[in-house]
């Protein structure tokens, strides 16, 4: 078997091929993206915040509403498409990335979104998620991570911490959890980010970058489930703890967090760890036991090598959450599966003469033939 060098298509924006609202036509508002269906999540669910943010953000894309498709699987988050006045499919458990792959590959004029949860994406749908990521199909995946099964009323999920006591694990869960960001990076993802349901500004900025990215964008959204896992993300949400808990990632900026130091940045920072090859957290300053600000790692989400992004992702607590990097871990350009699939069709059709009917006639009439008179 031989391999062939594929032509490299132009790297474009994620929504470049999607028709926009014609000039002169009234710009749509969040209301235009709100369907007439009653929202059925529990009071206080983080899903409401994300829905509001998405409804508010979609008009900013300037796309025609009919060219946006939301696909979901099964779970609380998967009711999302019903509440948006776009095309949508509430499919079956875990399979949304595969359905979205068919949509995105067959149509380049659609903006394709997948809404999924920690159980849907990482447990039953784990296979489809990793393969969508490695193929880099042009879609944006919003992974609502509650670290619990909500729709089935409170069993541990693939992101629940080990030892978690739930309805199905009265003596504590034995499963070691996935870190969705590490998983995505390991699956060759080209865009990986993490944000928080309650930080609308950050959430919106990440959504904008994800939509702009051509390829599969994975956005993990930390989300509180007030009924079955209340407070799981308090550390990164509470005003009293979040400065210490959130490690903010901004491309081109030194990774600093914690109480503000004399230079106006966080008093803690990340440096490379020569021993492990990973990264570690240090106190930043001029004292002998501190590390100079100049040595702090500058975040490079565009690095072709995902190693550092992976190392940063490992700073996320696997157990109860006290600390987590938040922001865009990785954002690199790589040809997408769907663009290349369409390019192959274009190439194959180039220079082929005749109508489809003529060519069908030639096809089925080919080979050795004989006539019976």
């Amino acid at each position, binding site marked *: 078997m031989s391999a062939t060098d594929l032509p490299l298509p132009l790297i474009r924006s994620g929504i470049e091929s999607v028709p926009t609202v014609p000039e002169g036509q009234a710009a749509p508002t969040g209301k235009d993206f709100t369907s007439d269906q009653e929202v059925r999540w529990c009071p206080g669910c983080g899903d409401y915040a994300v829905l509001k943010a998405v409804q508010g953000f979609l008009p900013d894309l300037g796309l025609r509403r009919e060219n946006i498709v939301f696909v979901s699987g099964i779970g609380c988050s998967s009711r999302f498409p019903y509440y948006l006045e776009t095309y949508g499919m509430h499919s079956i458990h875990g*399979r949304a990335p595969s359905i979205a792959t068919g949509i995105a590959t067959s149509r380049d004029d659609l903006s394709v979104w997948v809404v999924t949860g920690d159980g849907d994406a990482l447990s039953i749908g784990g296979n489809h998620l990793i393969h969508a990521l490695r193929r880099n199909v042009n879609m944006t995946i919003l992974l609502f991570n509650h670290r619990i099964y909500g729709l089935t009323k409170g069993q541990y999920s693939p992101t629940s911490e080990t030892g978690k006591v739930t309805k199905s694990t009265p003596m504590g869960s034995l499963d070691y959890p996935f870190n969705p960001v590490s998983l995505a990076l390991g699956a060759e993802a080209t865009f990986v980010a993490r944000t928080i349901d309650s930080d609308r500004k950050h959430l919106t900025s990440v959504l904008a970058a994800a939509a702009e990215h051509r390829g599969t964008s994975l956005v993990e959204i930390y989300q509180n489930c007030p009924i079955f896992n209340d407070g799981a993300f308090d550390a990164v949400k509470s005003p009293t703890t979040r400065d210490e808990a959130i490690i903010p990632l901004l491309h081109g900026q030194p990774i600093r967090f914690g109480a503000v130091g004399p230079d106006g940045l966080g008093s803690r920072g990340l440096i490379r760890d020569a021993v492990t090859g990973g990264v570690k957290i240090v106190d930043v300053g001029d004292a002998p036991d501190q590390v100079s600000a100049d040595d702090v790692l500058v975040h490079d989400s565009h690095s072709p090598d995902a190693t550092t992004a992976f190392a940063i992702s490992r700073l996320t607590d696997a157990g109860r959450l006290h600390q987590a990097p938040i922001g865009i871990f990785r954002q690199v350009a790589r040809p997408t599966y769907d663009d290349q699939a369409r390019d192959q069709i274009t190439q194959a059709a180039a220079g082929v003469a005749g109508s489809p009917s003529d060519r069908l006639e030639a096809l089925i009439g080919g080979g050795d033939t004989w006539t019976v008179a």
Partner: protein
Amino acid sequence: MPTGTYRNITGNLALAYGLIAGSVQSGLKLFLGSYPITPASDILHELSKHKAFGVTTFQAEDEIAGIGAAIGASFSGSLGVTTTSGPGIALKSESIGLAVMTELPLLVVDVQRGGPSTGLPTKTEQADLLQAMFGRNGEAPVPIVAPRSPGDCFDTVLEAVRIAVTYRTPVMLLSDGYLANGSEPWRIPELSELPEIDPAFADSTNHGEGDGAEFWPYLRDEQTLARPWAIPGTPGLEHRIGGLEKGDGHGNISYDPANHDFMVRTRAAKVERIAESLPPLEVDDPGADEGNGAKVLVLGWGSTYGPIGAGVRRVRAAGYQVAQVHLRHLNPFPRDLGDVLKRYDKILIPEMNLGQLAMLVRARYLVDAVGYNHVRGLPLKAAELAEAIGNLVADAEGIEVDLTPHGALRDGSLASSATLDATSGGES
């Protein structure tokens, strides 16, 4: 042989060509989502060579993703197809249910092989009929068609496309390993003989007037009971579909008990409606027109057509009467099947399974059909089949049967036979 231009063709090649023809005849882009599996992979290989027809072939990470992508493509306005064998169907079952619920056109090709489990991957069998018919949760009716010969794969897949697109439904096509890899002379059809297939995409609202005008995704065509197919990119028809039960008409989620009962019955009725579009059965009973019809009918489906025909010819060559009907449509059955069955005293159903069509026929028509069943991974043998038919003829007519050529004349059990010469010999 009918006049025309012929070529040799295998079942899998004819299937691939038929899918391309379905795409050309409907104007829909073909999207194949598939995972390699014996003996179906050749369809994937063949279609991947024909991208110039606008064909997309997606080799998925698993069977479920193959059908998932095909459903996504169908939702987006392509002709979504997935090809597999029995184990793959088992994995795709939940997704087929989704296509039943969302009422999207979809082709599911099952090139059957020996089962259960991994079974006999390179051997032939017909034991997926009941899986195709019932292998889903809930009341999830799926139309089923089956080709009878390698060349017939071409026509049968076009018929499957017609049904899927017209009735907005997944359609199961049951080929098998014998057809897939077997080859026969095939009369190349004229394009004018192929059906025109109209996707008839929805392009406007269908409920209410003026400012209150809405698009109702489950408002049905009165004749076919099909729902409108509105594809993304169509302004004003934005809608959501999914696996949850839909309210009649508006298509919003509904837990209403009466609505669920209605929708279950409506989905079943829609599939039954397909029968109205089917031609009358071809009954091969040479003496029937002269009032000298057979008492025994041999009913078959799929790749047993060849061996059954050969067995029937042996019995006729010996001077006995036997009728043959071969089904292309297994769900719904043709409307006249019940009447045809009632014309015969004995019905023999040869199958490469333990009696799956026989079970369906007995349940549906309350006839005492007898099975002839072998599951050896090999095609049925004409000589053995002739024996079984002969025994049934003996039983039905109260005679001794001698299957050597012209045996009926020699043993005097039938003083005269109308069919001594015309159909003798010729089994292959």
